[in-house]
């Protein structure tokens, strides 16, 4: 139990954050899947060599995917829940104007990400926010490496298409962020 509590102290927040980001608008499921994830850790009967961080991220991601599939939630078919993202986006520099533009750009991209299909959204989040390698991403999503790359690529193409529809040049966005 001591080892479990030690792991809990080290990884609980990152796991919770991962689930919150992957699940996006389905925040109501985060607590449930978070508990399932740590229950899985508590009752695991075998040890898989490797980092515990990668292990629990894989468990959490797969639990989230399974839960969403079980609920037939595969597309972006629900309105976005209002959250405190505006306040949660950190200031990245001391320049107020630059910060404001960066915040707007981040809000814009995250708004587009929220409208993505679930699997693309999860892949984008795991790749860019959780900064997983493609190998880790494929392991976490239980797919082949090529599929993992394809999902990230499609997520970026989705963003590019959405920006073009809004008449925004991604290069301008790049300067902001």
């Amino acid at each position, binding site marked *: 139990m001591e080892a479990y509590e030690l792991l809990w102290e080290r990884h609980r927040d990152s796991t*919770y954050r991962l689930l919150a980001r992957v699940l996006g608008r389905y925040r109501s499921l985060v607590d449930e899947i978070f508990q399932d994830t740590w229950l899985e850790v508590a009752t695991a009967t075998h040890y898989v060599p490797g980092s515990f961080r990668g292990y629990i991220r894989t468990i959490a991601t797969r639990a989230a995917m399974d839960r969403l599939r079980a609920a037939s939630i595969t597309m972006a078919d629900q309105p976005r829940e209002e959250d405190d993202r505006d306040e949660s986006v*950190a200031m990245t520099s001391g320049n107020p104007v630059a910060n404001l533009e960066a915040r707007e750009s981040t809000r814009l991209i995250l708004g587009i990400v929220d409208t993505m299909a679930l699997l693309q959204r999860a892949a984008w989040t795991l790749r860019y926010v959780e900064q997983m390698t493609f190998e880790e991403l494929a392991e976490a999503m239980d797919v082949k490496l090529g599929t993992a790359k394809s999902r990230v690529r499609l997520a970026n193409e989705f963003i590019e298409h959405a920006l073009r529809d809004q008449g925004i040049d991604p290069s301008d966005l790049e300067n902001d962020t």
Partner: protein
Amino acid sequence: MIEHSRIDELWLELAEGSLSEEEARPLREHLASCSECGPRYRRLAAVHRASVSVGRTMAAEVAPAVPPQIANEVLDNARRASLPLEMKEVRFAGSTTVAGRAPPLAARAAERRRARLRRTVYWWGALSAAAAVLVLTPVYFAYNARREAARIAAQSRKPPPATAAQARLALDERGVAIAALQYFKNERSSESVREEARAIDRRWDAGELQLRTDAPVCQTQQWAPSGLVDASGAVALLLLHGAKDSEAFLYDAKGARIAQVSFLLNGSILNTEAQKRTVGKPTNPRFGPPNQEEARRLLTAQWCPETPSPDIDIRK
């Protein structure tokens, strides 16, 4: 020549710089010359860089804290999971805690987990049972069909030639039948009838008489050659092998019918003339009807070999 689809497949790796120089160079050359792929790649690469930037920003933000209630329940759940199995066997669905509150979320999570496990076990159990039924049903029918075919084949197959042991067994049964007929002949007939029967026996023993039947029965003559059994024994053999008493007669050497089997059975022997008069007519009331039922009860043997072994001594 680089095709546009190649750019579509590899633009992300190119933007990330994960392609080798040998792979990247022709792509860059194509992007520099293609008016369609170049601008598109630049937009996508910008989106990729923006995504990296936004991702870093998001990663740097303060993580949402785990709600204290959830944290306590997870730890409580983990402690419960580490208890011995019998201590974990608590049903949470629709239950309340001792304090009367709803069970914690962690407990419900454990219950969900068990429910999923039960569903999985039931599903695989049902699947296994269905597979077993699908496999065993044809096997069962094939087994029954083979048994039925074997039974029909055994019925249609002619019985094998009698072995010496089987023939001796038949002879034993035949002895029982003969004894029964002797009983009828000696104990239940008048002295004059018995004397007449003994006279027929003597003639049988001398080879003067033949036993014939028109019924499709076994080769009775082979089983009852004159000189080996008496006349009653020959009749017994005939009946033993399925002849109807009304179809079996004793004939003398000239072919004259001298006695009907049924009268022998009944302990009554008629002379040829009397037999001639009674054939096709009711039995002579002086001796009563033939006691065939009792005789057949004693003649219980059913085995009927087509050809006896030539080396059998039926006297033994």
